[in-house]
């Protein structure tokens, strides 16, 4: 089912006889648990930017609008989506899907996540009611923040039909300080020093393949030059990359170019100093990857086996963090905890919450949790 507008979508929901696979471009079907549903409800046909006010830093688009379209319109006005969502999932990715999965790129560490810039959401709940939460202004604490609750809920509570985002001017210039790092621990130290500096580092990543840590500065050109020089000053072997090289480098980090195709992929979020421990603890299972967010985010890949998955879970737990199974064969995704299970009290709350939004349990059932 590919409704053309909100009313049609609401009617389809009301008429639905059984579970629906809710999606935009369908690019995240291989992420988290497989959804067994008789029908697919896609927002892909509900497309288009409905409001863009550059001087107010606000953009609103229908859920099925492709990320690439939004980014090109923004770029034409020298602006950007702050959280820098990865293009890991291919060109069909929609803004609804990006918000529903709350996946952010390198800039999350300084600028915040997708969820930090969702100003408003229109959605249809499981009873087919059209609801509007949040709004189009930059600050809003009116009532419970259900826009935040829907962001990152993978379509399990309601079907988003339109989202409003805060956007920002793209920086005039970008530069990168490259620091050799013998291992992950050394890299985290370099990144902690950068993120703990007064220079507003907007990206801090480590690629084991290169044995280098990268610190990004985005600002006016004179500031980029000054700040990169300050960060590199006195650091042995540090180099500074210019704008074009930097853009290519950070696009690769954002889109996980370093991960080999074909393998299972995980994301792990821990406090930054726990990042190296995670890399170490998954190595025995043939899992490896790279660090973003100063060491706090690990993109990992390895064999699509239960053993590898358990190793990732144990390592994330060891760092008091969380994991997402981002890509893997259906059998694996159906069999394991694709995200951490909740504590019993929270699980009970969540089940009651789902029932309040989707009383019939028809939206992406079991997408996130097995029960």
């Amino acid at each position: 089912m590919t409704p053309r507008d909100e009313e049609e979508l609401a009617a389809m929901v009301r008429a639905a006889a059984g579970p629906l696979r809710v999606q935009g471009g369908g690019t995240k079907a291989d992420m988290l648990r497989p959804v067994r549903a008789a029908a697919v409800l896609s927002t892909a046909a509900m497309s288009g930017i409905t409001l863009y006010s550059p001087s107010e830093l606000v953009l609103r688009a229908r859920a099925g609008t492709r990320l690439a379209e939004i980014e090109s319109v923004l770029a034409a006005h020298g602006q950007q989506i702050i959280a820098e969502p990865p293009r890991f999932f291919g060109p069909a990715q929609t803004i609804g899907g990006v918000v529903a999965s709350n996946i952010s790129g390198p800039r999350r560490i300084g600028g915040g996540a997708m969820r930090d810039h969702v100003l408003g959401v229109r959605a249809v709940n499981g009873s087919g009611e059209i609801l509007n939460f949040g709004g189009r202004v930059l600050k809003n604490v009116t009532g419970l923040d259900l826009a935040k609750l829907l962001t990152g809920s993978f379509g399990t509570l309601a079907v988003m039909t339109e989202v409003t985002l805060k956007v920002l001017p793209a920086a005039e210039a970008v530069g990168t300080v490259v620091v050799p790092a013998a291992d992950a621990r050394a890299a985290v130290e370099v990144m902690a020093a950068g993120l703990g500096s007064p220079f507003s580092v907007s990206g801090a990543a480590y690629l084991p393949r290169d044995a280098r840590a990268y610190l990004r500065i985005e600002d006016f050109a004179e500031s980029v030059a000054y700040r990169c020089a300050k960060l590199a000053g006195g650091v042995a072997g540090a180099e500074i990359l210019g704008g074009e090289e930097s853009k290519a480098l950070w696009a690769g980090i954002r889109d996980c170019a370093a991960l080999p195709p074909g393998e299972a992929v995980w994301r792990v979020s821990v406090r930054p100093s726990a990042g190296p421990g995670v890399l170490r603890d998954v190595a025995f299972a043939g899992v490896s990857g790279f660090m973003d967010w100063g060491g706090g985010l690990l993109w990992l890949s390895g064999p699509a086996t239960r053993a590898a998955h358990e190793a990732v879970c144990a390592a994330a737990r060891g760092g008091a963090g969380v994991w997402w199974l981002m890509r893997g064969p259906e059998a694996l995704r159906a069999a394991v905890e694709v995200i951490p299970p909740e504590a019993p009290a929270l699980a009970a709350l969540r089940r009651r919450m789902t029932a309040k939004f989707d009383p019939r349990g028809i939206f992406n059932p079991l997408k996130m949790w097995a029960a």
Partner: protein
Amino acid sequence: MRAMKQLDPKPEILARRGEIIAGLLRILPKRAVIAEAVSLKPYETDALTAYRQVPLAVVLPEDEGQVVDILKFCAAEGVRVIPRGAGTSLSGGALPLADSVVVGLMRMNRILEVNYPDRYAVVQPGVTNIGITRAVADAGYFYAPDPSSQLACMVGGNVGMNSGGAHCLKYGVTANNLLGLRLVTMAGEVLELGGTHCDAAGYDWLGLVTGSEGQLGILTEVTVRILRAPEGARAMLAGFASNEVAGECVAAIIASGIIPVALEFMDRPAIHACEAFAHAGYPLEAQALLIIEVEGSEDEQDATLRRLREICERFAPVSMRVARTDEESAAIWKGRKGAFGAVGRISPDYLCMDGVIPTSRLGEVLRRIEEMSEDYGLKVANIFHAGDGNLHPLIMYDANEPSSFARAERFGAEILTLCVEAGGCLTGEHGVGVEKRELMRVQFSPGELEQMRAVKDVFDPHWLLNPAKVFPL
């Protein structure tokens, strides 16, 4: 005086007052229970004194265990509970009900952990906002959200209201600066939400609880992100001949690609009140004043200020001045942050609105407010966060004059309705509280309110936590 309808107290609770207090004394030390009528009186209100109600009792827990015991006891007894921090809410967030127990978290005021390599701090809810920054300032760090009441307001309340501040244009509001919470539900269950890492796997409970105004649980621990402070910061003042011109200048600054760390607006009455308090050198001849702050090294500040001056020049400023020293910057901010209280110098009472509008509608909305001010015969001072359209019209009235408050209340409602009609919202950072409760219908449809109520139901099925706030009765 109190035009706002209140929830009727439950007679069976009032009748059992002695028993309930005895029960509280069984689970808490004597020093943690306040039950004398004289001593309950100062707890009848917060920073919105127009609404007042003496509670049944006040308890001041000292740790999470006591919070759990209190909530379990109150849940079992069917007693309503009102969480309270510093009592600085401008929307009546801590207003008691006659049959309620106020849970004051002021004694839970310890900083539990500071971690610089991972850039977070774990604090109890009774730590003041500025208390976090003071604890980490020696290491060069700060906690970004900075509501005007930051000296006094507490982190628990900041999370409850999702507080913003002057610098949230760059650094975001409370929700953007949190990593984890410990929340005790009305059933007495302790939930750990988030942690020390970024982003939730599963639902964004952290985001849901932030700004939930004590509807979902009581906080016992808050993990916040701390940031390294920039090399320096400087404020500049630009005075303009009218509100409209200043508003146009704001739009021009944003459009230029500069996002100043703060971009604040004051109109003439506000300029005069604040100058009397802070002696910051605000231009008394201006009709509207922008306070613009930039960050970075001296050279970077100079460069950004140069760009900003060029933009301001296009709007024929009546005065422009850059702070020369840290003391001058501090004085500029002292005036702005004490603005609400400073209005106490020119009026015995005020109502502080908190509506948000699309910034493109600034001039038009201010003009309408001016007209309403004349219609209602009440003066208004405008102080607000111009960069994000968050207005704080302060409606001045005299509570000792009988009709004055009712007019002020109607005036306020009309301003907020105007904000919603202009595409904005009722509250940007102060919360709905009791004050804007009935106006929620202006912004939300019945179905939307029903969905919010359903979420409240999930956490607090008997509606014992901070009832008669947020949702229209």
